[in-house]
């Protein structure tokens, strides 16, 4: 116990010294994406753009793709903060138990929390690691249902091994919004379609959650077709879902995640190791597939209108 306290004191004083010398030596921020290009590059681009816009030159961004990442870099460059982009980067960098706080981005909440809880292993160094999740708070999704489909009161949700603990939270969030959620929990892929159909029989809308057993690129096809046959609209997890045939979705684009990261970096406390708690993304986008709406005989406001209405709601 005493040893840990001493260690922590040593660390803090190291940080104090480091921050005192900010003007002399810019703090280094490591950014480690799981992969090159695509969404990962968009996050990084948005971070850079944000920092440049604020002329925040006291920070040096070092982009170190996971593929070529060397553990020794952590000790040679002594980063003040490590931003991981993607679940794989989060997991593998956390496993190195780096001597710096980590901010995990572009990954689902359950994965992020698990990595923060135990990703550094047994001899975890004591840092306030944090995350900006990729998923949306359930309240935001339910608010979207309420705004877009005011007569659809009964919300079907499928949970699985990764998400089963969220049932109570889902129910209370729905209650606050005068909605009823009916939840089916599956433990094997075989159960998906039977339970989905039972749910669709009694509900008005299917809300998808990041449960890989239910919403895997192999299953989405069947889930979407089934909802369509039951004439039940589906709320997807991303723009991809909406393009594929979901009625609507609220999601955060990589650029929006990057923007939020850059804002966090603008806070000196964050550079000093004092990260905000793991958070849902602040910025989001609403997409609507009006062809699906027409096909289901539903009226849905435009994306812009729904976005405006959703942004105007207080976060709960």
């Amino acid at each position, binding site marked *: 116990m005493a040893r840990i306290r001493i260690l922590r004191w040593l660390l803090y004083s190291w940080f104090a010294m480091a921050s005192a010398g900010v003007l002399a030596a810019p703090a280094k921020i490591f950014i480690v994406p799981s992969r090159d290009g695509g969404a990962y590059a968009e996050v990084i681009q948005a971070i850079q753009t944000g920092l440049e816009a604020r002329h925040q030159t006291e920070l040096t961004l070092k982009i170190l793709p996971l593929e070529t990442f060397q553990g020794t870099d952590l000790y040679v460059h002594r980063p003040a903060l490590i931003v991981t982009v993607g679940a*794989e980067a989060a997991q593998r960098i956390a496993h190195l138990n780096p001597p710096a706080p980590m901010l995990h981005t*572009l990954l*689902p909440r359950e994965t992020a929390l698990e990595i923060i809880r135990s990703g550094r292993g047994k001899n975890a160094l004591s840092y306030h690691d944090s995350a900006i999740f990729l998923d949306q708070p359930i309240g935001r999704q339910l608010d979207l249902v309420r705004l877009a489909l005011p*007569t659809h009161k009964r919300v079907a949700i499928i949970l699985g091994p990764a998400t089963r603990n969220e049932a109570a939270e889902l129910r209370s969030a729905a209650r606050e919004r005068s909605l009823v959620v009916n939840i089916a929990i599956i433990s094997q892929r075989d159960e998906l379609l*039977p339970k989905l*159909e039972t749910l669709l029989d009694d509900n008005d809308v299917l809300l998808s959650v990041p449960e890989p057993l239910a919403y895997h*690129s*192999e299953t989405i096809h069947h889930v979407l077709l089934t909802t369509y046959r039951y004439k039940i609209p589906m709320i997807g997890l991303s723009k991809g879902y909406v393009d594929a045939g979901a009625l609507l979705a609220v999601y955060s684009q990589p650029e929006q995640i990057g923007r939020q990261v850059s804002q966090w970096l603008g806070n000196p406390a964050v550079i000093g190791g004092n990260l905000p708690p793991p958070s849902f993304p602040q910025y989001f986008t609403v997409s609507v597939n009006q062809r699906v709406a*027409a096909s289901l005989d539903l009226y849905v406001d435009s994306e812009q209108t729904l976005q405006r209405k959703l942004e105007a709601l207080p976060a709960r």
Partner: protein
Amino acid sequence: MVGRFLLLPALAAGMLGAAAYGEDSLPLTEDLFLGDIPQVLGATRLRQPLSETPAAVTIIDRQMIRASGALDIPDVLRLVPGFQVGHVNGAQTTVTYHGFSDAYARRMQVLVDGRSVYNPFFGGVIWTDLALAIDDIERIEVIRGPNGVTYGANSFSAVINIITRDPADTQGAYLRYTGGAIGTHATVARYSGGDTDSRYRGTVSYRGDDGFPNEEDGKQVRLATFRQDTHLNRRDSLTFQLGYNGGTRDDGTSQSTTDPARKVQIVTNFQQLAWKHELSAEGELGLQFYHDYYRRADTFWSSAGPVHAIIDLDVFVERYDLEFSHTLKPQADTRVVWGAELRRDQVGGPGWFGTDQMLDYPLYRLFGNTEWRFRPDWILNAGAMYEHNDVTGGDVSPRLALNYHVVPGQTLRTSVTRAYRTPAAFEDRADAIIHTNFGDDHTHQGNPSLKPERITAYEVGYLGEFPKLGTVVDLKLFKEEIRDIVTSGNDKVTTPADAFERYVNDGESTTNGAELQLTYRMAPGTRAVFAYSYAHQYGRLVKQVAPTTYMDTRELTPIHTRSLFLEHRLLRNTEVSLAYYQVDHFTFMSPGDPTEYKSLDMRVAQKLRFGNTRGEIAFVGQHMLGDYFDFDRLIVFDKRFFLTLSLEVR
């Protein structure tokens, strides 16, 4: 053009990559949000928006079928604007659009999953004998108006497409029992299994009742159907179906010796195989083969005092059909479908045709239709079908239609269509003679030189979709001209001693009218559907061939036909629904009687849930406004009550 096809391999590769994950222990990563999802509800699967169809269409979904309280398919069709249903007796129903029909409504095409069930013997559809359980229907799409351009001859006044449920949607076991009035016992048992790549459904059903009081018209309908859907790969799928309907239909009159009470035996079966190959998001190849077999065994001893005869009313029909179609999108603003069909019908019935030989009716068809969106808010539909058969030779059924989206949600459409009805085998070749011990009695004589009946329909329509109000309005103004009507009359000049019915093309009819269909969805589970048809029909039909006399046809079509369907979900587990029907004065041709009626059906259903078992108890009351008849004044509906229990286990 090239670019479109280059996209495909990339998409397929993406899907393979995703499939590499193991079962049941999937990593929860950002791929769930960021991964590519193949477009599922693409253009070929999404319902073509009603605003882009070149005709007036009514869709009756599964929920509406159930909530209407209908036990038989024809009863559901009363909810379609302009439709009249006549119960000839408890085992025979006739369904017509804009009246102008007898016990065999010959002017409407009916397809089940793309398989024509139009019977070429007398023409029309024998609804009781379809190998199809009402529980297996996903939806019924009714094209109100001729559509020979798509479905060929006999798609004359309207086309009914019945689409059955995908076995993927009926997984598990299902059991329904309905019992109640007129000794009704109906049991349906279904099991569906398999996985999403290869799934099947088997249904068996028994339906029996005593028919109308004091009539020999009970029925025992046994049916069995099987359907298997297989995805061979991402692009190819096969649907295989089998069906059987057999049993007895009561006929005749008790205590009659000329038309004695008897049990008619029915055996019908079909086999169907359909292959689909997706070429791209907008293209598809289809190949379908089916075989249909129908046999009605009804031979009996008839006597009137010293005169007696063996009456042979046996009917035999067999059909083989092969169809190919190709849908493509050669340009961003153009969709094309073209194809060809080969068919061979064989019919037989010694008592009807005076020969033991099978009559052969081969035909072939070539068709093409183009949908051209020449401006973002204008769609032109142009197409034609060439059909050649051995009865009337070759005919072309064309259609030209224009849809204009005035503003989003409001569409005007106009079309001109021509279609034909090929004379049924009986009209073509009848040689019905009753051989008695006192000599022959010639009753019907066909006419191999008949021309096809011809319809030309002009339509102006308006579709207003107001989704914010949950309302859809469809208005149709029409003019239908039917010419060269095939009909029969006595010839009292040539054969004064034995004047028989002889078939001729001598009749014409014109119908002007307006139709309204109004759907109002207040909330999920709550809706009202109103249908109204105004039809002013006039014309003449030969009554006696020689010396020639005509009948006025005005009687044959009701001026007003209305229906109203209401359903409401009370609480979570209770549904109530009402269906009201009102038909103005009209008559089905011989042997129908003049009628007009109002009728109300109601249903209350309570859903049951225990674990993976779902069920429903429903109470149905039919004809709640009291006695009426819709065809024959002796075939009277009184109040009927039924109780239904259904269970579904996954």
